[in-house]
């Protein structure tokens, strides 16, 4: 049986048996050493292979039913949750995952039947549908924040209500400003959550575990800094490498030694590529904003075919300082508060402008995911600011999760039009 047909069989089976039991069975099946060996052959890069191997064994732990489970939104301090040995589901990432498996038609229609408006972000709609359909293990805790957007606060609270764990629902209220009072306000919330969850887990909080998590997180940070530095020069990427594929380890698994290891491997792999790179490529350099579609699509191939390569993504930028493990809560608060998607849009604009300069990009693409008010709302200013430094921006309308909301013909035409401009500059 070829690799492609194994993959197709697995996906087929998931699409036709949508429940938690079949997800468990499938996870078991792929983890079989022979199947996994064959499956692993389809990865062209060492980092991708490591990521998939690790994600798979992690998912098995999540689904095995022996560990307390927490759902969390993207930018919360996962160092805390990982230090408490919670197994994590990131519904937004899972929204992307459902797209990859091609089951979003079903999850989105479930959400629609449960009164989720089609005007809302599909990451959240699909995740809510999947949670309703019991595709994820039942959570013991739900933690979310209004970073980067309003969506998680509400959709996660709704899930907490459905699972009847309102007393185990935590909303981290992210301040608008970045000053001492705001930082303290945030740090106190994080500290309360840490102790409250420990209490509910009936464990004595071991602050040393949290410190270790911060040390791991710092390691990840320093490898990522190196990775990004390499990428300033690198053209010759491993095939299919895409920084946006690493959202789970970068955020959800931060604080674990495995996530730090993944970034060490990535650094090594990309460094080796850079060493072998004979001459700077002729490709035009593109900065990517927001996320990408997580179903099979041709966007990055079209770019490549037209002489353009994504060399940096806003979301993989290292925006936070090294953390002090001796002051875990204030350090984690400071990491959260430094996120450029928080507060004033100027934070994001500054990050984009400095990346554009650092990576010497020729153009930028903002993937305008349907229903993402926080990101798309800034598009016009981003376009104007980038134009000031003579960088064209393509605002590419689409949907990261729902392929039906992302007509491929239109996308192709728009990218080709854009690359023509870039190549003529």
């Amino acid at each position, binding site marked *: 049986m070829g690799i492609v047909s194994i993959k197709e069989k697995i996906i087929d089976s998931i699409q036709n048996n949508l429940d938690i039991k079949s997800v468990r069975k499938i996870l078991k099946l792929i983890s079989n050493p022979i199947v996994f060996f064959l499956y692993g052959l389809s990865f062209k890069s060492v980092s991708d292979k490591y990521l998939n191997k690790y994600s798979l064994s992690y998912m098995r732990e999540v689904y095995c039913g022996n560990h307390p489970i927490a759902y969390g939104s993207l930018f919360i301090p996962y160092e805390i949750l990982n230090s408490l040995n919670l197994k994590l589901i990131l519904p937004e990432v899972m929204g992307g995952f459902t797209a990859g498996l091609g089951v979003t038609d079903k999850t989105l229609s479930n959400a629609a039947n*449960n*009164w*989720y*408006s089609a*005007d*809302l*972000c599909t990451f*959240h709609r699909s995740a*809510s549908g999947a949670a309703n359909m019991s595709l994820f293990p039942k959570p013991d805790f739900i933690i979310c924040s*209004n970073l980067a*957007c*309003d*969506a998680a*606060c*509400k*959709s996660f*609270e*709704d899930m907490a*209500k459905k699972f009847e764990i*309102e007393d185990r629902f935590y*909303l981290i*209220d992210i*301040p*608008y*400003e970045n000053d001492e*009072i*705001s930082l303290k*306000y945030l740090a*106190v*919330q994080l500290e309360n959550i840490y102790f409250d969850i420990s209490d509910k887990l009936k464990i004595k909080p071991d602050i040393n575990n949290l410190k270790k998590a911060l040390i791991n997180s710092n390691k990840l940070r320093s490898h990522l800094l190196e990775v990004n530095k390499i990428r300033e020069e690198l053209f010759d990427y491993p095939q299919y490498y895409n920084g946006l594929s690493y959202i789970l380890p970068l955020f959800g698994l931060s604080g674990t030694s495995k996530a730090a290891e993944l970034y060490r491997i990535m650094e090594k792999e990309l460094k080796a590529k850079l060493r072998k790179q004979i001459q700077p490529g002729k490709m035009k350099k593109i900065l990517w904003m927001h996320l990408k579609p997580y179903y099979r699509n041709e966007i990055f191939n079209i770019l490549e075919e037209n002489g353009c390569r994504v060399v940096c993504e806003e979301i993989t930028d290292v925006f936070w300082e090294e953390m002090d493990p001796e002051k875990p809560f204030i350090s984690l608060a400071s990491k959260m508060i430094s996120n450029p998607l928080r*507060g*004033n*849009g*100027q934070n994001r604009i500054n990050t984009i402008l400095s990346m554009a300069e650092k990576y010497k990009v020729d153009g930028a693409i903002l993937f*305008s995911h*349907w*229903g993402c*008010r*926080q990101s*798309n*709302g*800034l*598009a*016009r*200013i981003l376009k*104007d600011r980038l134009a000031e430094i003579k960088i064209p921006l393509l605002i590419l309308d689409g949907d990261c999760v729902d392929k039906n909301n992302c007509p491929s013909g239109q996308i192709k035409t728009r990218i080709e039009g854009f690359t023509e401009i870039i190549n003529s500059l």
Partner: protein
Amino acid sequence: MEIKIEESFADSIKSSASLNTGRGMVAYTCSYIPEELIAAANLIPYRVYGNKESNLADKYFPINFCPYVKAVWEEIHHNTILDAIILATSCDGIRRLNDYISYYEKELPVFMLDIPRKSDKDSLGFFAHNLKNLWIFLCGISNVDPGNTDIIKASSSIINRKRTLLKELTKHYEADMHQIIKNDDYFNIINISLSSETDTFNNELESYIKKIKSLKENYDTVHNDFKSNLKIMIIGNYINDNNFWSIFENLNVKLISSDICITYRYFDIGLEKNYEAPGLENDIFTDIANSFISKPACFRMADIKSKLNDIKAQIYENNINGVIFASLKFCDNTLYSFPALKNELNKMKIPSIFLDIEYGKSSYGQLKTRIEAFIEMLNL
């Protein structure tokens, strides 16, 4: 006898339209922004209504963006008499509006008031701190000494009188089954209260209520035909749209306990009490923060469970027959809250409909048909 709103509130309407009061004007966008601070700084608080007609905002914001944000942006573009604008961290849409004002309308001073989503002690202290910063900002606009916080107390008492009067008006409106206060008149009066000079409005509202009372007494003795026998609750966000309210003008319904930004959430704010707790400053800002954080919550705030409990209590207490959930389009905070609410309403067997409102650009004919069909169904 019909009481004409334009006549009863002529001076109030003039006070917001002509603006020759000699005082500056500060626009604000959210019911969590305390008008008393604006008024104390000798400025007229103006709940910005927005320009709903023009299409300039479409060049700036995506198509699927809050129509209120767009309308405000539109108005700011054309409004040259504003001294400042106060925004609140209500939602991602308003966060972006702040960016647009700061980038494209540099001349207009803007302040972003950070409103916590929670109501615990730490959030309260944080909110009080932010209110103090707002006060300093306002004093800077009008050259008032920020140290003189006594003027806030004086201003609070005027604004609180307005709130008390609006509550009284609501009591009469909700109890009045003869439609002496017509549905659209009630919402029109609230709209006037949002942008007029407070003292003028208070006086006019007081006389209006007197007239209503005497009309009602006479009416009750002569008539006993009930015009409104169906009680409907409207739940949603910033529904402040005369075209929308006029749909209800001649309908045989009463809009009770509406849970939207311009009704109870706007005026049901307790007179501030001293709030003392270890670690909190015992000052006027903490008191105001406390009053505002304990007012009827908007969907943006955490704790959907207690929000739903409040709504359920209102439905039972007032024998509500049906709920209209009306949301300005693309409002994430409100749209994400609907599934939980709909579930509760279904459990209670309360019929409901969901309406998307375009704010000024809605197809009112279609809305009217849907509302009429809903009411017909309730009548069966």
